[in-house]
């Protein structure tokens, strides 16, 4: 862990120059960066929409935006944040960058597909932004029929196609990851020697490959319904609008695990690195990822409890939703227990990981409340739901993403970021987040429906708190944007392994060379082993083979 290659060694960043070299790159690391830039743009636009939402909701009267405008704003907020930011976020950036490194491979299985998947996201995003500029969509990110198919006079088709294309980006990423994990592992890298990050991505990829096509066909059917009135979702033609909801949530519930699983993988890595200890219950965490991915396909009906499904199926979906919480519980407890007799370092990534545990727990527990039929009856389609999913998606998934970004930033860019600012940002995000979204639980139980641009005055206090919190949160998000950008030029040069962590990615230079490892690694022991060396590079030390 010593030789911080001080000379401007050849690495993936300086191996070739020019925009063209980036736009045609097949290097998974560069594609990861392309993705990172792209999703940051989408996050900023989505965040701008969130800002508008919170500004509007600071007062009960719908005085800032027209109702029509407001509807478009929260719809674009949801669509951009979910399909163009959070779904690709960790897998396509950190996952892309790290999977081959962690497995000791030279690249992902299909580098060209990998690049193609980025272009899919860009093309889908461009279409969606085109729609946004020309007036947007107002269906909500859920595109419920028959509103979307027969009544909305906004750019439903264009956006639908945009999301459709972005979906293929996700599918291609998933195909790539599964093939990579099966076929590209370095010698000695058995399944149970893989980092938990890889397991999490395996589970994620499974959902991406087998879930995403269903939303694709659903959106296609929506476009057909809207264009040709084939009738399947249109009650006036004999169709069933609830069928759309089934098809939509068949993907979109598992999709929430596309968003959270990679984040859980990041947290496992961070916890191991900053406790310098093997994560407690490695196999339980690994299998719980698969468990979540599979059980996640059984519960989509909990979004439809009061939508007109049979009471019988509501009962079935409710009890199944409870089951999916068990593997999540296993993870949370295992992480916590890892801290026991550990060597805990309070570095910035660790702050995010601990924040993740807390916020995800709250988000998850309120998810279980929503899965409880008697409660959902009252709080569905209220701010309680909004609070729940921002806790898991913003408090959970984004915390994990930021944590991972701070953890691997030295590896990715070869630079360190300022410690003080990064800790301050983590704190601001945590405080701002809670201030923004905790009041929404109360609002929800009080009965404030979601997707309301005006509301009765008695809800104002809580809404003002929420808007105030959002301001803090925005600052918290803007800080990393600034200091991370700053560090790329002015940051201290990062050594190979700044955290003293164990993992193949820390065995190569920062930033890594284009081919990742000069010599193919050989793995001789379990992951996270801080007591002995388990990675070897045979050409250097031939006897270790």
């Amino acid at each position, binding site marked *: 862990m010593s030789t911080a290659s001080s000379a401007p060694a050849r690495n993936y960043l300086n191996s070739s120059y020019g925009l063209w070299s980036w736009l045609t790159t097949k290097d998974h690391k560069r594609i990861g960066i392309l993705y990172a830039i792209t999703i940051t743009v989408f996050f900023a636009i989505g965040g701008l929409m969130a800002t508008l939402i919170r500004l509007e909701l600071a007062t009960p009267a719908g005085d800032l935006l027209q*109702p029509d405008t407001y*509807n478009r704003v929260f719809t674009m907020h949801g669509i951009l944040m979910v399909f163009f930011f959070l779904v690709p976020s960790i897998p396509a950036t950190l996952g892309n960058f790290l999977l081959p490194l962690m497995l000791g491979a030279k690249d992902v299985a299909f580098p060209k597909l990998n690049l193609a998947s980025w272009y899919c996201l860009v093309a889908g995003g461009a279409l969606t932004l085109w729609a946004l500029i020309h007036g947007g969509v*107002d*269906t909500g990110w859920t595109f*419920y029929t*028959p*509103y979307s198919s027969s*009544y*909305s006079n906004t750019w439903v088709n264009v956006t639908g196609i945009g999301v459709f294309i972005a979906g293929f980006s996700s599918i291609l990423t998933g195909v790539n990851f599964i093939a990579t994990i099966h076929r590209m592992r370095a010698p000695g890298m058995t399944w149970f020697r893989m980092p938990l990050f890889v397991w999490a991505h395996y589970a994620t990829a499974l959902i991406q490959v087998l879930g995403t096509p269903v939303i694709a066909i659903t959106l296609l059917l929506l476009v057909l319904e809207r264009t040709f009135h084939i009738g399947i979702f249109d*009650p006036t033609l004999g169709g069933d*609008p609830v069928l759309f909801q089934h098809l939509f949530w068949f993907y979109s519930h598992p999709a929430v695990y596309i968003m959270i699983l990679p984040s859980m993988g990041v947290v496992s890595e961070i916890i191991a690195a900053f*406790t*310098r*200890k093997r994560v*407690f*219950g490695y196999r339980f965490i690994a299998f719980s990822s698969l468990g979540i991915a599979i059980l996640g396909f059984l519960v989509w009906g909990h979004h439809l*409890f*009061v*939508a*007109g499904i049979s009471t019988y199926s*509501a*009962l079935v979906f409710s009890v199944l939703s*409870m089951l999916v919480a*068990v593997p999540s*519980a*296993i993870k949370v407890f295992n992480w*916590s*227990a890892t*801290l*026991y*007799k*550990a*060597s*805990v370092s309070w570095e910035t990534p660790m702050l995010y990981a*601990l924040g993740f*545990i*807390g916020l995800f*727990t*709250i988000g998850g*527990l309120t998810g*279980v*409340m929503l*899965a409880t*039929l*008697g*409660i959902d*009856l*009252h709080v569905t*389609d*209220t701010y309680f739901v909004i609070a729940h999913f921002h806790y898991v998606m913003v408090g959970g998934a984004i915390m994990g993403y930021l944590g991972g970004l701070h953890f691997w930033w030295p590896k990715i860019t070869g630079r360190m970021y300022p410690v003080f600012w990064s800790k301050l940002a983590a704190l601001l995000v945590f405080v701002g987040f809670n201030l923004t979204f905790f009041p929404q639980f*109360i609002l929800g139980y*009080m*009965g404030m*429906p*979601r997707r309301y641009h*005006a*509301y009765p005055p*008695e809800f104002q*206090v809580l809404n003002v708190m929420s808007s105030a919190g959002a301001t803090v949160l925005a600052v918290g998000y803007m800080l990393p944007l600034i200091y991370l950008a700053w560090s790329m030029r002015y940051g201290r040069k990062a050594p190979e392994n700044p955290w003293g962590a164990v993992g193949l990615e820390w065995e190569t230079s920062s930033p890594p060379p284009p081919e990742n490892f000069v010599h193919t690694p050989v793995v001789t022991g379990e992951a996270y082993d*801080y007591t002995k060396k388990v990675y070897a590079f045979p050409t250097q030390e031939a006897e270790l083979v």
Partner: protein
Amino acid sequence: MWQNLPLFPDSASTLAGQVDGIYLFSVAIALIFSALIAVMVITLAIKYRRRHPDQIGSEEHPPEILELVWSVVPLGIMLVMFFWGARVFVTARTVPANAVEYHAVAKRWMWKFQHPSGAREINELHVPVGQTIVMKMTSEDVIHDFFVPAFRTKYDIVPGRYTTVWFQATKVGEYHLFCAEYCGAEHSRMGGRVVVMSPRDYEEWLTHGNAGVAPAASGAELFGTLACNTCHKSDSAARAPKLDGAYGTQVTMVDGTTAKFDDDYIRESILNPQAKVVSGFQPIMPTFKGQISEDQLLQLITYVKSLSGPGK
């Protein structure tokens, strides 16, 4: 402004207590587990903080049996939540036998209600306290949702079909009525009030210009004006089945299938008579689709139902 910071909405129905009960229970569970994890994480992270830069974590782990504990205990708790929540939900979804039927037609962006007495109102619903009421609802366009926070219940209103929601108000007062399913531009303004009144006040309200014609009576009138009675007569020589006493029975069709004579069957018979042709009759009944409104349809159904006497 600050005095207005309650944590609960009004509670004004028999269901409210039940929903609050399961809610409070699960809030307690959530608090306990969040606190447990927060305390555990923070104390461990402080107690075992890194003392010198090269320190590595001990290889020692807590006992493996914990894995079992923290899988089974949450599962057990969640099953309790499930059964409790399921009971409340089944109660909320099972319409009590003594419920009085009110009608709601939702459209963008208004509510049309009709009382059993025939009184109609828009965006306001007056109900007597203590009476069990079932709203029979349909939509003229997109999906809406009948939501009264004080009653702790809601249900989507799906076009092309009837859904129901029932409640029994327990407290006189005025409560919010919200549309809780996104339905377009004015979704947030598609609200109104539910006014719960003492039975006396309610009677009075009804008689003060709000009487209207009972749906069954309007239905009877329609039965004449639409010439239903030219075929559906009470004599046995009629060209069409006798409707008296038919409600609730099983009807046999020409193709041998059977159907239950219920509201939806009547609806279908009126809108699409050829779909199910009663055994022993010719498919001569014309469709009335497009000729009558949703409101009139409800009135006709109520009338046909009334031919089978009170109750079901």
